[in-house]
């Protein structure tokens, strides 16, 4: 098969998450079936009905950033920056003048610097503060994460944030893939970051009545909602020819990207829209549905999403749906909103690299409405040539990537 487009590969990634603050820790926790959902530590929970979340632990900003840089960084930017440094370190790419202007930085976030905004506006509205710190705006802005990454690493190409709620990271990674394959950039630092576990945000999510009070159990008959998470996963994407030229270690290839909008409910998912995004991703990768071995599902653990996603997978894959391993890793790292697609791409890359499907943890009871093979509770060794990773957002926004084993 020949294509007018360049091929795009992933040569490094970094992770900050509730189940590990490095790709190695994340990998171990993921396949061991570790659950990062715990009682919330970082904010008071007395006034909260939902007292659990998948918080990032043992992340000490001062260990990562200078006293000069740190005050400029909201927690979501801290996560993004720390993960991007890990990614660049793993890929061993050297950003010099020969590639700096051809390097894009595209990051997904659902909300941006929410913690900074919460603190600043509380001081203003409730505590009578007369003036706010001049760093509030550069910390809060949604584009703070890519801006800080570009400054930190000297990346001078297209740099911006994509915000599409829970599909933000997948849209950002997909757009980076598009830019490289069409020749607008040679390399991209991309992924997603979110730090949304604030008192205000938890109260707002409680009002949606979609949160579980005890755990996230995707696809299980007794699932009763999602659990918020936080963190970042950032990737180095490169044109295949450039990666080969510098003899880079290739972790995986991105071979397709599909997007769609349901154009129906603002919060109710549609199987039709999700199925269309999956079909478009498969077409983009020139694949038949039976070639997919593994799907990292959006799998939020809400009654509605998991049923609708199951229907969508059945619509697309028909009979071959029964031989695909489908897992949701949100029971492990929580639902990190705009970062979730990035954490799940990290899980998908590891699945391919380690020839193992990560488990759907906390699974207890089969649901007649969710009748696929969800790899319950225990990782499974299996060869994976092609995988899909799904992100479906409020607003009916769908984004799907096809990931392939690196060229052999």
């Amino acid at each position, binding site marked *: 098969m020949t294509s007018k487009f360049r091929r795009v590969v992933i040569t490094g990634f970094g992770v900050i998450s509730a189940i590990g603050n490095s790709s190695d820790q994340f990998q171990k926790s993921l396949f061991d079936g570790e659950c990062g959902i715990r009682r919330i530590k970082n904010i008071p929970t007395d006034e909260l009905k939902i007292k659990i979340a998948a918080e990032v632990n043992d992340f000490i900003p001062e260990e990562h950033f200078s006293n000069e840089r740190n005050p400029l960084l909201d927690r979501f930017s801290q996560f993004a920056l720390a993960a991007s440094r890990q990614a660049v370190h793993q890929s061993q790419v050297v950003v010099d003048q020969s590639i700096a202007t051809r390097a894009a930085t595209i990051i997904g976030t659902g909300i941006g610097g929410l913690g900074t905004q919460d603190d600043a506006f509380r001081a203003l509205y409730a505590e009578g503060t007369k003036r706010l710190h001049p760093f509030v705006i550069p910390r809060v802005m949604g584009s703070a994460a890519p801006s800080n990454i570009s400054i930190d690493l000297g990346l001078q190409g297209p740099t911006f944030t994509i915000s599409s709620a829970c599909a933000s990271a997948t849209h950002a990674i997909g757009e980076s893939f598009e830019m490289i394959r069409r020749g607008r950039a040679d390399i991209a630092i991309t992924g997603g970051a979110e730090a949304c576990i604030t008192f205000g945000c938890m109260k707002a999510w409680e*009002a*949606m*009545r*979609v949160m579980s009070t005890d755990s996230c159990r995707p696809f299980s008959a007794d699932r*009763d909602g999602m659990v918020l998470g936080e963190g970042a996963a950032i990737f180095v994407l490169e044109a295949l020819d450039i990666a080969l030229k510098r003899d880079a270690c290739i972790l995986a290839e991105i071979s397709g990207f599909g997007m769609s909008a349901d154009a129906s*409910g*603002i*919060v*109710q998912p549609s199987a039709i829209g999700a199925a269309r995004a999956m079909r478009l991703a498969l077409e983009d990768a020139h694949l038949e549905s039976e070639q997919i071995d593994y799907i990292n599902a959006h799998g939020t653990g809400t*009654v*509605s999403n998991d*049923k609708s996603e199951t229907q969508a997978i059945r619509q697309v894959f028909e009979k071959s749906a029964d031989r695909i391993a489908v897992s949701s890793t949100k029971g492990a790292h929580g639902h990190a909103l705009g970062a979730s697609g990035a954490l799940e791409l990290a899980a998908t890359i590891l699945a391919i690299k380690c020839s193992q499907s990560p488990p759907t943890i906390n699974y207890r009871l089969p649901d007649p409405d969710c009748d696929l093979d969800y790899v319950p509770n225990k990782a499974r060794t299996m060869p994976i040539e092609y995988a899909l990773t799904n992100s479906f957002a409020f607003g009916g926004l769908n984004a799907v990537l096809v990931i392939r084993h690196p060229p052999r």
Partner: protein
Amino acid sequence: MALDKRARLPNHEITEKIIEIIAASKELDVTTISPNTVLTDLGLDSFDTIEFIFSIEQHFDIDIPFRPSENEVSEFVTVGEVAEAVAKVLANKPSMN
């Protein structure tokens, strides 16, 4: 005080207020809604119901235990069932004195 008065509201007044809230949110005439009216017949989907319950919670300053259910839109089928749930919560509400 006002909250205590609300706590002693007879059930028909609770029902009237609930009908008023739902009529306002869906731009309907109150006379077209009765306790036997089925919520879905008023065009309420599950997210509308979440918002409707929120408006009731705000008005009566109470928390109504309720989880949206995908198949039936909510565990409440009729307007009267919502009124019963509100009356129950109000009856158990501690006095503000």
